[in-house]
């Protein structure tokens, strides 16, 4: 059994715009998946269909073996969702929002209060429980929606850009939180524009563009596709002349900054051997850009090239 199976899902909105052109996705129980794609790719549309907030045009959805069309209650029971936009009553308090949400899932008030305490505590919102939610900061609002999504303890958690606009410290603590609940058995699907986040958290990745899935693989597999990487080296001493690194493509970006392309044939070990031989001392080294970012751009661009050729 899979946590989620999406089959040939298509969506054309009332205005005639086709946001999804028949996507397929299979998410294993216990998995941690990321759904990546540029703005307007259809991520939110797909998520909202799975969560019964948008009507599909065609296709099939199964959650933990239950078909959404025939067993919507069972499907809904299994899913917790954090939407991209704030959608709680901003005039209500975090505690009320959580307890009411629990009530909608048939959870008794006494139990709901205990759970609200647990999740508001874990998400560092307990002190804010009786504040009017409108007065919460952006990051707090996101955390409130995460607590709300967990109140019925779903087996599948779907997060639509959960860390958008969240500061670095809180983002890291949210990552830890997600990893933790995933380790405890909750399947997670996450969309994000921070590719570092996907690389850090997810074991599987699907890339969606213009309503189609253009890549669906394991994170490691995807990163392995990246055959070249550009490194930026900061050098201890200024270079007075061309360092003559045979076999490598490189350029001097400043007197003590070198940018070097490392590929399959010339690995990073070879590079350092050469640098030692030339007596060039490296003080620090970094990737020119996030590896996944590079891949992402390449995948999305290559698809654009193809469609341009066809048109």
């Amino acid at each position, binding site marked *: 059994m899979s946590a989620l199976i999406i089959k040939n899902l298509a969506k054309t909105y009332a205005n005639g715009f086709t946001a999804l052109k028949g996507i397929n996705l299979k998410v294993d129980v216990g998995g941690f998946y990321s759904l990546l794609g540029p703005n307007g790719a259809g991520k939110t549309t797909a998520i909202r269909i799975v969560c019964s907030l*948008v009507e599909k045009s065609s296709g099939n959805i199964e959650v933990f073996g239950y078909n959404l069309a025939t067993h919507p209650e069972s499907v809904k029971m299994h899913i917790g969702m954090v939407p991209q936009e704030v959608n709680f009553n901003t005039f209500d308090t975090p505690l009320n929002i959580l307890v009411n949400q629990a009530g909608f899932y048939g959870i008794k008030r006494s139990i709901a209060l205990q759970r609200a305490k647990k999740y508001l505590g874990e998400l560092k919102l307990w002190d804010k429980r009786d504040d009017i939610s409108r007065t919460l900061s952006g990051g707090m609002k996101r955390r409130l929606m995460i607590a709300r999504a967990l109140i019925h303890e779903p087996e599948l958690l779907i997060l639509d850009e959960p860390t958008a606009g969240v500061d670095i410290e809180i983002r890291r603590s949210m990552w830890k939180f997600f990893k933790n609940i995933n380790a405890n058995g909750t399947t997670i699907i996450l969309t994000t524009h921070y590719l570092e986040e996907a690389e850090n958290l997810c074991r599987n990745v699907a890339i969606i563009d213009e309503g189609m899935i253009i890549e669906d693989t394991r994170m490691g597999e995807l990163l392995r596709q990246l055959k070249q990487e550009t490194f930026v080296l900061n050098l201890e001493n200024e270079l007075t002349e061309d360092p003559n690194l045979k076999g490598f493509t490189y350029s001097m970006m400043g007197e003590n900054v070198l940018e070097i392309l490392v590929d399959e044939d010339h690995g990073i070990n070879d590079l350092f051997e050469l640098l030692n031989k030339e007596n060039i001392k490296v003080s620090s080294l970094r990737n020119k850009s996030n590896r996944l970012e590079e891949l992402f751009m390449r995948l999305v661009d290559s698809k654009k090239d193809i469609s341009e050729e066809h048109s």
Partner: protein
Amino acid sequence: MNLNLNMIAFYTIVRKEVIRVLRIWIQTIVPPAITMTLYFVIFGNLIGSRVGVMGGYSYMQFIAPGIIMMSVITNSYGNVVSSFFGAKYGGHIEEMLVSPMSNATIILGHIAGGVLRGLLVGAMVTIIALSFTKLELKHPLITFSIVFLSSVVFAMAGFINALYAKKFDDIAIIPTFIITPLTYLGGVFYSINLLPDFWQFASKFNPILYMVNAFRYGILGTSDIDISYAYIVVCAFIVILFTLSFVLLKRGVGIRD
């Protein structure tokens, strides 16, 4: 359908609605108290003393049941339409849509909220009325059943209005252009026997006439129409409006893209 789940969900909606009504009492409770007091002072006291007897009762007594019914109708409708449209507008309707509670529970919970507000305001207006005049309770069962059923009808109508509404203006159109005129023409302030034949006949197509008269019958024992028609009319409306809200909600009209 899981009955226990839906019972808890129903209770959650009702509780939330009642708390909302009490929290914003300045918007929900105070305005009808002021308006209805003015009706009693101006129509009942000032004008009523010149009108004399209507339907066998003093004018103040005659209009009191109609004014109570009017406040029940307006508030039942107003509560559901503003709360449900507010949830749509604020996005928190999604909290209900992602949950496993049934569509019937969503409808019934909001109806119950509207009925409770309607009856609460109705009770308050009754107390105000009693400070102006004496009212009996000739047929308690008819009084309570008809006020309850009428409240349900208008709460449902408010729900449907909220489903179709796209902006705040849309929730004022029906009350302004349909409910208020029908209420004023529904025999709150006069007996339709005073009207020319044609308008008497036309009045019989106004459902509010039946509600007001049945309610007045329950309190005073006098009515322009046969009470059994009143029950037929309100029950028919309840069946039609509930079916309609159920179908609309299931189709996601106004709430799902």
